[in-house]
Each structure stands twice: as structure tokens, then as C-alpha cells.
């Protein structure tokens, strides 16, 4: 005991002499995820840079300093700021790169495990839009590609040196610049650095966006520490009617080359108009020499898609799961999304048999069944098809044969049903009941599908309803959307809508004009979804939408998709009204600002096919 005390005293003496007598030495590294810097507290943004953007808002065509590609430039030029008067756009939050530039107070705090005190997460709350970010520090992986996106995205962090480095994925689409349309896509990823120098915090954002940027966009945001709680943290918003009697298929935008305010910015500040439109070079010292060669002809050319070239193709990586496996994503309550076998599948479970919406392409049906069996011990009782398209009905046969409908044996209908007409009623104990709009049945039968793969329980008019597994399930017929047999299927209690191919996050709508599809019907159907959704907070969450392909969405993704279809329709219609031929419409690249997201030039559904469908649809008044 005495020896130990002596050792302690000696060590303290040596330590004191060491610390007092020496100049600062190279300090040791932080270990593990022990915070290298403490970011906790209240922070106020410094607005000594970009005050106009961050305060009053940016001007049209002021896109300088942003490495936007052609699609980004055209998207911005098409943008009309009055789009925010549309109900669903009114309360949208900011995407994280812009959120960090917002006015208002910020608060950061740590979340630690109650028992181990290990750092689990760093939280950040932004007053503007009540933006709550969670930066996970516990090493958890990022979600899969088919998981929902949010305005904040999914963030993980680690300390390195004197910085907190944060990686963010799964952001929604939004504004990279406030107010003038410079876009950020839902494929953007973000790397951030938080560096603190005393009471000064610097946040550096590096946005990589394969859809709209030609190289990463780097900005830095400064904050100063506030000693006390500023006490203002809320940002209430509810949407409402701002412009009465506007048709629901009206989306404010400008046709290519028709942006009326494009020259205001340059004129006001005596800057060449091209300066704001040239993309990445505008960030560099070379801008001044580049502008010496920019003439009026080039400037005008920047206002419309470049001609004489094929459409761009999608820069999205991994939009659909194609790894040969079927993946389960819990949606809400007892509703799940299965991805991997062509079109997305919805499974609802409960004390009754499983209710399945769409059956996938059928190439991985055994894996689909195996996945469903992990969710419920009960058999598949119902299969509903959102359309007759093969990515959604290809698995009908296998999934149907694996199910059974216990509500039918012994019923009058089974006893009285003429054998061979509906197929399933002949032996309901060994087959699920299949439901769809009657036109799905008609199209599948016409295509020669086996009876066991054709829905027998059909409806004819605008609505079908069913209460199953404790939830009210509604079918809403959408005439002439992508086909003439499309249904939206709404699980009311879970508040999940299966949209089928009316809505996807991966491709232009597959408007099958020969089988009854039309662009007007598609727009109507998308608006029908938006009439049924309720967001939870600041334009996101709430009603979930399972797309025909792609990731689990909410109304924001449907809204942007609806806007896209309306805008492309308007462009095609303007040309049709002016007497343009189909070839002229195709050559005009009317989808140029969306092609890096959805464009495909080969395969079963190309950009040209979509444009042609829109053209033919409009020529036929549909």
C-alpha cells in the first residue's frame, strides 16, 4: 500500500514537471470514436457569404459557382418559383446541403448509451423547417437502395483528426440553391466536415450528384456558438389553397428557351448571361478567360437542349435490386415491401392469410415465397394485381398455387361456380384468390396466360374494397394510366399505397398506348395518389407509396414524378399544337433535364418510346 502511494506521488511529480516545463508537444490521437471535438451546444449561422441566396433568395439564371451539367442547367431554367404555391410543395423541408445554409438557430447534442456511455449518435436540430438530423456514430451501415429517402438523408459519422466527417445518403430531391431552381437529385450523396475553432464552427459540404452535377459541389458554412438557448426552435407549416381554381395538372414551369427572366440577373449586375450558365468552369479562375469566347450564339444555345445528339442516359446506380435475391423492407405495421423479382411486391400479414399486391416477374418466385414465409405462417390468401404488366403478374401462377383462400370452401359460390370458367373456384383450398380490375383479366387472357395466373375476382368500376387482417384495403381504378387496367391499392390503417407502374422511382412511366395507356390518364392517376396522401412533417413521411419499381417513397417522390410528367407533356403538347412531327419532337430532346435520372436508350422501354407514347397519346386527345 505504501509502495503504491509512493509510486503515485512520484508519477504525479514527474507529470507536473513535464506538463509545466515543456512547450506544447505533438498531442496524442483520439481513440476510437471518442469525440475529437465537442460540437454540443447552440450555434447561429454567420451570413457573411451568400446573404442574398440565404435571405431574400437567389435570382433566375444566377447559377454561377455551381458545377451543374446540361440537365441541371435546363432543370433550373425550366423552374418557375411559383411552383411552391402548389399545395404539396408548400411545406417541403430543405435537403441537408441546403439545410446547413439555412437561417435560424442550430442545436447539437450527443446521444450516448445509458450503460456504456458509448457515443451512439450526434443530433442536429435546425430551426428552419425543424430539421432534425441524426448522425449515427455507432458504425451501423447505410440502408439499402430501396429504403426510403428523407430530406435529411441517412448520416453516419466518424472523427478523423480535428474533424467530424459525415457521410449522407438517401436524401430526397430538392434545391441545391434556394429559390432559383438549381436542383439536387435523390441520387446525390454528401460528405461533410465539421471543424471547430473555439467558438467558430465550420461545416464543409461536398455534394456529389451524378444526375445534375459534373463534379462535386463544395461549400462551407460558418456558425458561432451561442452561450444560451435562443429559445426559437419551431417552424410551423400547413399547406393550403394559395391559388384557387387552378387545374390539378398545372405545374408552373417554362418551356425550353422561354425563360423570360434569364437575362435580368446579368443585366442588373453587368455580368455576361453565359457566366451563370456554364457549369463547372464558373467555379475556377479560368472563368474570365472562358467568357472571352462566349458569344450570343453560345449563350442562346445554353438555354435549350443541345441538338443533334442522342439523349443522355440515367446516371443512377443500383436503382432496382438485381442481385438475384429477394429482400424484405418493413413498411409500416404489418405491411412489407419485397424487392428483387422485377416489380415490387407488397405483403400484408395478420391473423388471416397474407394479402399480396403484385407477384413479381416470376423469375424468383420461390425466393419470394420463402421471404413471405418468414413474415407469416399463414398461406397467401389474396393476390391483387395493379396491372397486367408481366413484372407484376409473372409470379401469379407460383404464388397463387402456394396459397389458399379459406373463405371460399363450403360457400355457395364454389358449389355453384361453373368449373373451368374461373379456375380458382374449382379448388380454393389449394389456390389463392386473385383480384384485379377486369381489364387485367382481359389482357392476360388475351395474352394467353394460363388460367391459374389470371385474376378471377375482378371489379369493373372505380372502387373495390375489402377488410382483411384488421385493415381496410381499397382498390381505386385508374383508367388509361399506364394501361387500361391499373389500380391503386390503399391499406388505409397502415396508410400504404401500392402504386404499381403508375409510379416508379427508376424510369419514365411505361405508358402502353396500345393497351389503353395515356399521358393524361397517367397524370390523373398520379394526382389521385396525391389526393390520398398526408405528410407527417414538412412535406415528408406519412403515407408511404410502394412504387412499381425503385425505392419506398412518400408523397414527395410522387409529386416530383407528377411534375415531371406534366412538364414533359406540356413540352410535347406545345410542339404538337405547333404542328411538329414525331421526329421533330424526339429531336428536340424534350426530356433533356430528366434523362440523367430516367433516360434509357436501349431495352424494353426507352426515352424515345416514352416521348412517342406522349406524342401519340396527345395526338389522340388522351
Amino acid at each position, binding site marked *: *500500500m505504501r509502495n*503504491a502511494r509512493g*509510486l*503515485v506521488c512520484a*508519477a*504525479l511529480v*514527474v*507529470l507536473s514537471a*513535464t*506538463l509545466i516545463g515543456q512547450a506544447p*508537444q*505533438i*498531442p*496524442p*490521437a*483520439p*481513440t476510437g470514436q*471518442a469525440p*475529437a*471535438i465537442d460540437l454540443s451546444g447552440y450555434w447561429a449561422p*454567420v*451570413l*457573411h*457569404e*451568400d*446573404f*442574398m441566396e440565404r435571405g431574400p433568395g437567389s435570382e433566375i439564371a*444566377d447559377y*454561377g*459557382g*455551381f458545377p451543374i451539367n446540361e440537365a441541371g442547367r435546363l432543370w433550373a431554367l425550366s423552374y418557375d418559383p411559383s411552383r411552391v404555391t402548389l399545395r404539396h410543395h408548400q411545406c417541403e423541408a430543405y435537403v441537408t446541403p441546403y439545410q446547413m445554409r439555412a437561417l435560424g438557430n442550430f442545436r447539437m447534442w450527443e446521444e450516448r448509451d445509458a450503460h456504456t456511455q458509448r457515443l451512439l449518435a450526434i443530433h442536429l436540430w435546425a430551426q428552419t423547417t425543424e430539421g432534425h438530423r441524426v448522425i449515427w456514430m455507432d458504425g451501423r451501415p447505410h440502408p439499402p437502395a430501396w429504403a426510403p429517402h428523407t430530406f435529411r438523408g441517412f448520416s453516419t459519422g466518424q472523427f*478523423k*483528426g*480535428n*474533424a467530424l*466527417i459525415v*457521410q449522407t445518403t438517401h436524401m430526397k430531391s430538392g434545391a441545391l440553391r434556394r429559390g432559383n431552381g438549381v436542383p439536387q437529385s435523390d441520387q446525390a450523396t454528401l*460528405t461533410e*466536415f465539421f*471543424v471547430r*475553432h473555439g467558438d467558430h464552427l*465550420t461545416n*464543409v459540404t*461536398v455534394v*456529389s450528384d451524378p444526375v445534375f452535377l459534373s463534379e*462535386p459541389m*463544395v*461549400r*462551407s458554412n*460558418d456558425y*458561432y456558438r451561442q452561450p444560451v438557448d435562443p429559445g426559437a426552435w419551431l417552424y410551423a407549416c400547413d399547406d393550403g389553397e394559395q391559388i384557387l381554381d387552378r387545374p390539378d395538372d398545372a405545374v408552373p414551369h417554362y418551356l425550353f428557351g422561354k425563360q423570360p427572366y434569364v437575362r435580368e440577373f446579368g443585366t442588373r*449586375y*453587368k455580368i455576361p448571361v453565359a*457566366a451563370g450558365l456554364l457549369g463547372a468552369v*464558373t*467555379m*475556377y*479562375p479560368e*472563368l*474570365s478567360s472562358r467568357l472571352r469566347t462566349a458569344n450570343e450564339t453560345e449563350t442562346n444555345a445554353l438555354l435549350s437542349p443541345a441538338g443533334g445528339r442522342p439523349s443522355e442516359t440515367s446516371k443512377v446506380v443500383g436503382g432496382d435490386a438485381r442481385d438475384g435475391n429477394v429482400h424484405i423492407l418493413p413498411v409500416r405495421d404489418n405491411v412489407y415491401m419485397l424487392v428483387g423479382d422485377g416489380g415490387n411486391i407488397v405483403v400484408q400479414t395478420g391473423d388471416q392469410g397474407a394479402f399480396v399486391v403484385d407477384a413479381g416477374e416470376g423469375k424468383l418466385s420461390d425466393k419470394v415465397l420463402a421471404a413471405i414465409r418468414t413474415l407469416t405462417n399463414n398461406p397467401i390468401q389474396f393476390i391483387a394485381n395493379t396491372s397486367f404488366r408481366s413484372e407484376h403478374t409473372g409470379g401469379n401462377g407460383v404464388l397463387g398455387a402456394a396459397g389458399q383462400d379459406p373463405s371460399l370452401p363450403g360457400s355457395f359460390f364454389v358449389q355453384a361456380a361453373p368449373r373451368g370458367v374461373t379456375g380458382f373456384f374449382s379448388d380454393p383450398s389449394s389456390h389463392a384468390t386473385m383480384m384485379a380490375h377486369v381489364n387485367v383479366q382481359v389482357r392476360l387472357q388475351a395474352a394467353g396466360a394460363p388460367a391459374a395466373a389470371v385474376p378471377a375476382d375482378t371489379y369493373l368500376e372505380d372502387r373495390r374494397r375489402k377488410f382483411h387482417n384488421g385493415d381496410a384495403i381499397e382498390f381505386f381504378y385508374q383508367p388509361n394510366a399506364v394501361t387500361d387496367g391499373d389500380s391503386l391499392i390503399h391499406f388505409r390503417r397502415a396508410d400504404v399505397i401500392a402504386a404499381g407502374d403508375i409510379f416508379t422511382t427508376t424510369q419514365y412511366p411505361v405508358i402502353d398506348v396500345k393497351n389503353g395507356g395515356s399521358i393524361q390518364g397517367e397524370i390523373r392517376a398520379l394526382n389521385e395518389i396525391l389526393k390520398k396522401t398526408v405528410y407527417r412533417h414538412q412535406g415528408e413521411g406519412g403515407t408511404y407509396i410502394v412504387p412499381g419499381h425503385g425505392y419506398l417513397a412518400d408523397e414527395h417522390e410522387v409529386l416530383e414524378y407528377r411534375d415531371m410528367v406534366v412538364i414533359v407533356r406540356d413540352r410535347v403538347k406545345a410542339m404538337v399544337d405547333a404542328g411538329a412531327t414525331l421526329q421533330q419532337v424526339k429531336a428536340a430532346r424534350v426530356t433533356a433535364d430528366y434523362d440523367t435520372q430516367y433516360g434509357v436508350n436501349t431495352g424494353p422501354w426507352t426515352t424515345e418510346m416514352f416521348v412517342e407514347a406522349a406524342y401519340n397519346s396527345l395526338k389522340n386527345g388522351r
Partner: protein
Amino acid sequence: MKYSHVRAYGLATMVVAVVTQAFAPRVEAQRGGPGGPPAPITPRASAPIDLTGQWVSLVTEDWRYRQFTPPKGDYGSLPLLPAARKIADSWDPARDEAAGEQCKAYGAAGLLRLPTRVRISWQDDAALKLETDAGTQTRLFRFGPTRADAGGTTPAGERTPGGDWQGASSATWDYPQAAFAGRGGGPAPGGSLKVVTVRMRPGYLRRNGVPYGAEAVLTEYFDRLDVPGGDSLLVVTAEVVDAEYLATPYWTSQQFKRETDTSRWQPTPCAAR
């Protein structure tokens, strides 16, 4: 009693560990080998980050103000006092040219806001040199106290604000807080370069005549941030304190990207317009 022993030995072990950690960097720094005289560690040798190389401005904020000379009186975002507005409102680039003062926007407080390439190198073991091709300027960041002879004097012997647009800079390495608290072991994996610059010849914060004065103090932190799988960035966080012209400290942060191709280095003279 037995418990006390355990507790005491545990405490002793902790203290020894702390002492070992406190000594470790010093031992590392001595480099003289056992028995040899300790070699003084130099700022260059103790650099926690490598800032050397060529960097190019990424003008993504205040773009209009930085890529172009804004119109007279256009001083948005700046926390100016009336005295500054009065000077800015009388800005006359022709007058600056005639007076040979076309470098007023290239002084230390405004230099790194300009679109430029930057080369950073060690002039010696205790001073970093920063050169810009815009305006062909050179800043010297000397570690240690500011040199007393920086700046100039009047014929009457009074100290003037400085004979040089870049003033006098003193540099220090700035380490993460936790590292000073003695966590972990081994050399610091990161840190910043802190530079305090005084005695600048009065110049412009913005090309269109927004002034900073003789007593302005510029404090900068140079951070190197390596994007995983991407570019190396240099971020310079700057604070200008100037009681003569600024109502509050003026805070900005400028970002640069590292260039391996140095062929775009193009020295140009100062321009007043």
C-alpha cells in the same frame, strides 16, 4: 485492505499510463537517440497536416462578388460601419491605378477570396510560404511571435500599418481539443494551421472598394480535409476584426482543391477593376 491495494495499484497504473502518454510525443520528437543531445523539434517536423502543394479556388459562394468586380456600392453580406460605406461609395479604380494602388484587393484580408491558385511551400523549417498567381502575391507564415520589424515606419519614427499588403503573420499549429486532453497515444492525426496577421497596409475586402484598415487583425485557420475517395480540400476559415470599418467580426471560409497538374499556374499582375 486487500481492496485498498487493488484500488491503489489501479490508480498508480493509471498515473503511469498518463505520464507515459505525456512523455511519448516528447520522446518521439527528440530524435536524438539514446544519449544524444535532444534535437529541437521544428514547426515543419511537427506539422500535423501537409498543406504544401498547389491548390485552386473553388468559388462557390459569393460568386458574383468574387468572380467579377461588383458595382460601386454593392456590399451585401458585409457588416460595414458607416465609415466603410462612405469609402466604398467613393471607390474609383482609376484613382487607385493612378496612385499605383491596384493591389488593394490583393492584401491578406482579401487575397484568398479572389479566384486564384495557391502554392504553399516551406521557406525554411519555421516558415510557410503562400503564393498566389492572382496578383503574384506572397505571404509568409512564420512560426513564433510576430516580427517586430514587420511593417514600416514614418520619417518621424512612428510605426506605420505596414509596408506590405500581406502584413506580418505569425503561425502556430492548432490541435484538436481532445488531443490536448491527453486521450489516446501517438502523434496527432490532424490539426490546423492558425495564422494571425496584423500590420496590413489598408486594402479592400472586396474589389469594389470595401475597405479594411491599418489596425485590422486577420485570424485564419487552414484545414486540410481529404474527401474519402475524392479530392483533397484546403479550407481557410477567416475572421477579420476591424473596429474602424466593421460592425462585427467578418467571418468567411474559402475552399480550395488540390491540383496535381501544376501547369495552370499563371501569375498575373494586380488589377484594380
